[in-house]
């Protein structure tokens, strides 16, 4: 049983997250270890297992990038690992530029404005890649899935940049 089936949901990238949350809570209500605090140790152990699985399933489906990754896994698309060399030179160049942009934020005259601007740049580029991945996942051919997996990898770079920007923001606020 895959995670979509576990939640009784159609295997689509654009899923109803509201409903996902509802089903999740319903499932946890029936298997969470708290429901078995007074049951036999056998049932307690099973409850921990099932509840863990449902938590994992929920996490995999809730976050869009994780959901994409999970869908590609069940479709059998080979995922290049993170350390594998990236062939897209254009993309790598752009990443270096963006890193430089983040490094310069703290020297800006107006730090708030610089952070705002950097956030905008990251979000616009993220959105673009995200939309193509969305379309490719819907297409669901071997070729489209391959392209989606490459886009997913790029999106993860943006996610990391975003985290770094967050950290930078925290740091600047704290001093």
């Amino acid at each position, binding site marked *: 049983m895959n995670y979509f089936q576990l939640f009784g949901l159609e295997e689509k990238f654009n899923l109803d997250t509201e409903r996902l949350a509802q089903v999740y809570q319903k499932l946890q209500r029936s298997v969470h270890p708290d429901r078995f*605090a007074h049951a036999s140790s056998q049932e307690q152990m099973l409850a921990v297992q099932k509840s863990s699985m449902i938590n994992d399933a929920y996490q995999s489906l809730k976050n869009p990038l994780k959901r994409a990754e999970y869908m590609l896994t069940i479709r059998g698309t080979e995922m290049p690992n993170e350390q594998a060399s990236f062939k897209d030179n254009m993309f790598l160049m752009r990443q270096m530029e963006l890193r430089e942009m983040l490094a310069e934020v703290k020297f800006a005259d107006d730090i708030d404005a610089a952070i705002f601007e950097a956030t905008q740049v990251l979000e616009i580029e993220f959105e673009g890649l995200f939309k193509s991945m969305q379309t490719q996942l819907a297409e669901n051919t071997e070729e489209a899935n391959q392209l989606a997996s490459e886009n997913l990898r790029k999106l993860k770079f943006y996610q990391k940049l975003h985290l770094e920007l967050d950290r930078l923001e925290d740091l600047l606020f704290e001093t």
Partner: protein
Amino acid sequence: MALLQIAEPGQSTVPHEHRLAVGIDLGTTNSLVASVLSGEATTLKAADGSDVLPSIVSYQNDETLVGDAAKAHAITDPENTIVSAKRLIGRSLADIQAKYPSLPYQFCGDENHPELVTRKGKINPVQVSSEVLSTLRSRAEASLGGELVGAVITVPAYFDDAQRQSTKDAAKLAGLNVLRLLNEPTAAAVAYGLDSGKEGVIAVYDLGGGTFDISILRLNKGVFEVLATGGDSALGGDDFDLAIADYLVEQAGLNRPLSPSLERQLTMQACQAKETLSSAESCEITLELEDGKKWQHELSKETFESLIQKLVAQTLRACRRTLKDAEVTSDDVIEVVMVGGSTRVPLVRKEVESFFKQPPLTSIDPDKVVAIGAAIQADILAGNKPDSEMLLLDVIPLSLGLETMGGLVEKVISRNTTIPVAKAQEFTTFKDGQTAMAIHVLQGERELVDACRSLARFELRNIPPMAAGAAHIRVTFKVDADGLLEVSAMEKSTGVEASIEVKPSFGLDEGQIANMIKDSMANAKEDIQARMLKEQQVEAARVIEAVQSALDSDKALLSNEELAVIESALSTLAEVAKTNATDDIEKQIEVVNQATATFAERRMDSSIRTALSGQSVDKV
């Protein structure tokens, strides 16, 4: 003790008697016990009418004092009177000494197992906490009139694995059956949430004596889903006291180190000043110096607030980060719950109100709200409220990972993941022909091993020699609903396995606990045996009842033969449980467990199916 009733197999065991269960708030400064009595959660009082028990233990020649009686010795006998043991529990010596350099205790023991030297010998912080828990347990049993089925014990959300495990050990030592370790902010939300029936995002700001926690939760139809939690496990009201004490030392022109008794006097005066300044504009401080002279000083509210401003700002920064982790903003927050005695400080209330742009909830006594929430949860877990819709979905506060080459940490489970959770990750060998692998388990957010908390080390041996990178070592992390971790490692091609309940490297191992229990009993041998027999009999009764009620509702999932096997195992167990044969009871419990394995699995799957089908009916 009331004897547990066992029904004839095949017969229903209803009606259930009310099971005695309590919630315990094991605090840094004060502890409380509460229980649900005729539908209402209330704190339980000691014989003298007080419900707050100071978390202080004093080791005297002829007796061990706990609470107010121990507090009386705090100044005159500081080395033997342990206050705030919660700040020491599950921590390394280096950790303690860096954080609290002026503690009046003498430490001994090794780096990972610090102990305190008292006139009663070496005492582990776990033992100190267990004395507090024992006192509360006796109080509860006296006031409820029977033996407890179990207790929910609260811990700061920010407690790491070692601190949680040590708390559970302390409970075990005190003879308490832990139904669940519950995060303090979640407990507070339970206490309020059920009262007000709110739905939406709420923030729980918990500033206790020694810890600060901030939790962001989403409430929906009785489900409390913790979205994120953050804070500082070493920041609390005691730090306000320290700030005042440091200021006084400076004003009085004193030079540290001071005598333990003067240090204790300083912190107690500082604490009193803090409390007075919650309602007064200034207060008078009088110290008796080592040369017998008196020193007086007037401390204004303004000075006090300037002393603690930085600490309060530190808590708000944690709030900001945690909101971000929860992916909500302060505008989404519909309610702010205040917990912990330190939230009585007016500056704290003022700053929290301006940060969340709304006045925080303070209607339940901030010192009692945690114990009350824990009691409500205990009542449900004990099975007294089978129809309750309430469910708590908590998270792990700090990421868990493994050391990899170069002293780096690879995260296996990231913080704010809902528990229980199980995650596996594969690693490989670094050298050709490598036959063993050291697994070093860490907790924390930083990337370098040295900046994280080391939880445990163990080795996977007998890996068949292969080329570097050819072995596939699968390491599995399992975190249960108490937030406790278990790690196992397996080489996939050969099935060589090693596993560990993350325990020995910090805190106590099973043997040590057993020894402590033994030491604490006068007639060790008989008592231990009696205790073990009783434990098995209670467990047998629990198993029989659990299986019986499972049969009552889901007998249909079994064939006649399967049913017969279970029923016969059950009636044998009922017979054996009447005897004194501890080992036989244990064996028969295992037989019942084996016989019901498939049944339990089917029941679980059937309830998942029911939950799902209910869902599609809603949709139609």
